[in-house]
């Protein structure tokens, strides 16, 4: 029985910075319901947080859950890694989902332009056995 190569699992998301700006400006508790204290310690500017939220959504798409199927935004953290690059930390249901699916480490790339933040997330999914 042959094994195929691991296939990449990809998620992408766009977030309007202005939308996050309104949330930051409102000063309500929504930020704390979406971003962990460690994430907010990395920055609280609208453009920064828009990129981080795009990262959460992109990872949620890699998991195949979005935020309506058992995984909440606090369970997908996009933290500052070495040299400032983003790194993903999964907890709770997000971690369980990734483990159940046999996903490899999730890598992210975030960019901003024209008032939009975009993030692409990639993970390796396990090889699938196929009969020849």
């Amino acid at each position, binding site marked *: 029985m042959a094994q195929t190569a691991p296939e990449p699992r990809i998620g992408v*998301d766009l977030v*309007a910075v202005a939308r996050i700006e*309104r949330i930051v400006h409102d000063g309500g508790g*929504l930020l704390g319901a*979406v971003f962990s204290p460690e994430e907010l310690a990395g920055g609280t500017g609208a453009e920064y947080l828009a990129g981080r939220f795009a990262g959460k959504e992109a990872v949620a798409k890699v998991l195949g859950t979005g*935020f*309506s*199927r*058992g995984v*909440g935004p606090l369970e997908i953290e996009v933290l500052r890694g070495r040299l400032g690059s983003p790194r993903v930390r999964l907890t709770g249901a997000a971690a369980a989902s990734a483990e159940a699916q046999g996903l490899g480490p999730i890598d992210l790339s975030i960019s901003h332009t024209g008032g939009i933040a975009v993030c692409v997330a990639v993970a390796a999914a396990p090889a699938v056995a196929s009969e020849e």
Partner: protein
Amino acid sequence: MTAVTESSALTSVQNIVADALALDLDEVTPESTLFVDLGTESIDLLDFLFRIEQELGVKIQAAQLSEIIQGGIPDEEFGTPEGMVSSVGLAQLKKTMPQIDEEALAGKLPAEDVMNHFTVGNLAAIVAAHGADRS
């Protein structure tokens, strides 16, 4: 704490959605679909639910929504292997989204498009149901 009635839930949800999306109130009708008509994004849904909890004391997590809408029916029963909503799934959707036309959608509704039919009124009904037992 008073129970949340369907009428009060609808009024509150309309106001919350309009405020969160910076829309005029008359653009947010009970029949408006959140994701298609009103252009709701994920962050907006989280904002609606956060405000609903703050203003009405009714806590609904976004992570629960699929389960609420699917009525706890497992994915393998809710959808077909081809990715369409099954007849069992459509019958369940009719309970949480009574406006859908089961006959017209039979065998034609991709499971990933279910939330495209989710309206302001549907959200209000879920809020009312979750708030009805408080007294």
